[in-house]
């Protein structure tokens, strides 16, 4: 349902919200890029001592950072664009007594 009152109410906010949405769109791309970086390391350090644990730490560092950023973005978005259409399923239920 088009909800024009809400749109109007948030009009000042729109710019800010757009940036947040853009950020949430870009975040997975950034994540993918960061997750692929370890692939490059092997070729560089060919005569290496094993550094699997460091690699693992790097992966989890990226992972947890992504989670943190995603959480911040999710909280910023919360009141925003997700006006859920209330359809027929909002009908009150009735049931027989048991």
């Amino acid at each position, binding site marked *: 349902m088009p909800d024009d009152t809400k749109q109007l109410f948030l009009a000042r906010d729109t710019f800010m919200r757009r940036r947040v949405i853009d950020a949430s769109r870009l975040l997975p*791309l950034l994540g993918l890029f960061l997750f692929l970086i370890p692939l490059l390391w092997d070729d560089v350090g060919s005569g290496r001592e094993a550094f699997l644990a460091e690699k*693992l730490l790097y992966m989890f560092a990226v*992972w947890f950072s992504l989670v943190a950023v*995603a959480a911040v973005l999710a909280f910023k978005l919360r009141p925003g664009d*997700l006006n859920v259409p209330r359809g027929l399923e909002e009908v009150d239920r009735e049931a027989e007594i048991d």
Partner: protein
Amino acid sequence: MFAFDILIEVCIGYVVLLFLVAYVADRRARQGKIGWLRSPLVYTLSLSIYCTAWTFYGAVGYAARSGIEFLCIYLGPSLVMIGWWWGLRKLVRIGRMQRITSIADLISSRYGKSAMLGGLVTLLAVIATTPYIALQLQSVTLSFGVFAAASPSDWPVQSQHATAIWVAVGLAVFTIVFGTRNLDANERHHGVVMAIAVEALVKLAALLAVGAFVVWGIADGPREIIQRINESPIAMAPNQSSRWLALIFLSGAAFLCLPRMFQVLVVENDDEHHLSTASWAFPLYLALLNLFVLPIAAMGLAVLPQGSNPDLFVLTLPLSQGQNSLAMLVFLGGFSSATSMVIVASIALSTMVSNHVVMPLWLSIRRQGATVSGDVREVVLMSRRLSISAVLGLGYVYYRFSGGGEALASIGLVSFAGVVQVLPALVGGVFWRGATRVGAALGVSVGFVVWLYVMFLPSFGPDVLLSARMMLEGPLGIGWLRPQALFGLHDVDPLVHALLWSMAFNTTAFCIGSLLSFPNPLERVQGAQFVNVFDYTASHRGWSRSNVDAEDLLIMAQRILGPSEAQALFQAAADAQGKQGYLPEITPDFIDSFERVLAGSVGAATAHAMIGQMTSGSALSVEDLMAVADETAQIMEYSSQLEAQSQELSRTAGQLRDANEKLTALSVQKDAFLSQISHELRTPMTSIRAFSEILMLGDALDAEEKAKYSKIIHDEALRLTRLLDALLDLNVLEHGHVTIEQERAVLRDVIDRAVFATSAVSADRVFTIDRNEAREAVQIYTDLDRLSQVFINLIANARKYCDAPRPRLTIRVVRVDGGLAVDFVDNGSGIPAESQSLIFEKFSRLSDQSAAGGAGLGLAISREIMTKLGGSVTYLPGQGGAAFRVILPKLPMERAA
């Protein structure tokens, strides 16, 4: 080492706990106390069925074999969740708008509600999921085996198959009990989701506990672990970039396409806001779950004897250190992982099988259509129950057939690659309006065949399903057709090879098919609705299909959705149109939303077919569909304001039309009223006058005659008085102040009184009254005399007017909107739809044939009384006879018994 019995007992205790959790959640949900049952947290935890036993045990095994690569399988879903704004949000919105019940339903619905596509996706899903279910059965069996082997021999090492059978049967029972309890209008299973959320916590706790034990119990802290990892053979495992990328893609895609994931992500989703929480919480869950996988693998390789199965390190590591309770927790964690996956997967598959295979077949066998057929609801539920058993049975058979060996361990990725064949049709369907049914069918089936050939069949190993010769040299010795080196691509990892070719063929076929074919009107409509779901929520309207009776639709709806849901739905729709009562105007809008609700129960294609049969007696014609398409194209250009206005207008028009009809009817009634009241007053007066004159003659009357005629005069005078009383009563109720004397009482007693008071009405007929006195044992607080006056009137009416050869009245107490209502339903021919809105008016007795009765004021009085008491009395259509619902005033009440 503790006795094996304890393990069994703990296991059973755990299952009982899950039953309880599911039961309580279901119960609360049905009482409308959803609350925390549907919090974002529960939603997030329910997503954890992505992590099956394959994760729980297999991740460590995977890590021990191939190093850090295992992480990719969780990075894909993490990125999909973090990137929810791209796709998931849209999927969830579409799922809600179109009342999607499964991934097969989504595909079928998008491509013109095609039954064929739904069936195809269902077939694919069943083939790809069965091995995965087998894998879960195997993991539970193996973990049992670990305990059995380590325990003293008091437990006979029974054949592992017996364990698998019992697990499968137990899961089937659980799933049938909680998964098919109800044909929910929106196909959500509160109990199951809650149980899964609990299992998610158990899984996480178990893995974290083992991890902590490994890091701080066995090793000396993180420092030592880092050293161990770098010294372990795992550190030498090569990284293959192509596999790394392929795995991220595959897992991310499978996360969307797996039937069970689609079920929890989209179908069970209750609120889009939950998605924004899950977008970070679920990746967090995955990260935590995988945090200690590599440490456990490295430590397992270092501590446990050579040749131990790394897939069971999680379990054997604590056991080898004598940590029995920890091992028990781990066992439960693994058990949780396996059971939650199997439960949701079989619910999802059974929904698909029943909606896209069984129901279409059933409908086509019963040519005369859904109207005349029996209880559709029962058929659907039964077919789901059978499907669940069949799916689990298949899983078990597969487990036996494959021998439960190493071959199974690799099946996880094979299965992923199978379901991912739906991805092009899914993504294309959601983002590309030009995607057509032909394209989707071609893409899915080509991808499916390629996957079968290059991945699924070879996965059984040489000489099982494909001969070794064929695998080595290609069919008929054609080298470039070798299954695992298609078109000479032989230096590539088999997974990458299979994924590359199947997706390439799939996507190409999908695109070419879509470009070369022309969508039919319904596909275009659905395409527009899916792709533009955010800026366009109204569906086709403005064209009218051939006439269909609202009452017929209601009858069908009651069969499928259950009576109370159907009535609530119709009443809400009538409300929205500004009409009173239960029967809305049959507008295209209403038909649309109704179809979507039905789709929630039986799937889009089936619902469409049923509505088609109802509305036009046959399938929709091309002209109909063209009309839809044209109207839709126009409507899409409407601005949002216009749309809102036109809705407001049509609502006002509906109200005006209603009011006008009522006024016309009322003016006709006004004339009838005068003539009626004249008749009602003159009839007793005639007798009184005639007999008075006779008595006045005085002569030739014996005493007996005198007495008899005086009595007649007396009776008729009383009748006149009653009539005048009723008129006055009504007048006071309508215009004056009425004192209402409220008392507390048990509803049953009031009904008793009314039934007794009416026993003299038409006493010559045998009249049966069905009651459920236990349900009537509720406290009420209202004016009891007035209420029983209403009951008496309704019962007396049934006794007088029910025209069934064996008249029968059912009085039942129901809950409505949290309040109480009493339904009076008889088995007569009911009241014709055109009269239903008039019967509550004064003197509106429908025919004069029973003129001996009241003057037609009873229902008018009853209505006034109920309004004064704060309740209502309405006619309830579609019950097979005359039916009235008395909604009692809402007040705090509790059970008497």
